[in-house]
């Protein structure tokens, strides 16, 4: 392989690698952004489910109380 051919080959490789790095940087940024969204949703859902469970317990206890009074 002549020097010029080697340079052409290296330039081609450099171009491919530069594109790969840019792509990976974009994927990294996207994954980080998604992680923030997922963590936020997770926290919100945990709190909401806790609140709903408490509300559900209240209803359940109330209905249990009514049924035991009937007995």
């Amino acid at each position, binding site marked *: 392989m*002549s*020097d*010029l051919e*080697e*340079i052409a080959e*290296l*330039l081609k*490789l*450099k171009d491919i*690698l*530069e594109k*790969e*790095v840019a792509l*990976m*940087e974009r*994927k*990294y940024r996207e*994954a*980080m952004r*998604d*992680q923030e*969204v*997922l*963590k936020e*949703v*997770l926290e919100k*859902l*945990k709190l*909401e*489910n806790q609140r*709903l*469970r408490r*509300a*559900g317990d209240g*209803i359940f206890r109330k209905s249990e109380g009514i049924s035991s009074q009937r007995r």
Partner: protein
Amino acid sequence: MKIVVRPESGWRKVTFNIPDEVFERISELGERYGFRMDRVLRIILLGGFIEDEESGDFEELEKEIDSLERELYELEGKWSPLKFKTYYIAMDNQNLAIQISGLIAENKRLRKMLGKEDKDYSEIERLIHYYMGFESYE
């Protein structure tokens, strides 16, 4: 175009004509590849530009190759850890997606039990599906 070639020392000179359009073409090519006109003519007349391993251009090419190889190592060194980090963030996201999926199911069940309206989770569910199916960045 009349071209006069003089030796570095001595008095003899060679004169010859080249058609204007050929001269223009040579000039264009020289400009495009960054060669001065006298250098281009020298290459045309003496030849051996690529094959001449002892010329300064050969050293320049070697330098260019070394510099390109260094740039490639740097890029490779940047790309590998970046891919590794991105993969592990995606795996963390997959874990979060599994947890959220369970919480959404619970949320739907609780809402139904309490007679509340369903919430729209389509946006987050798209993200969940993406990360649930994630295996690698290959």
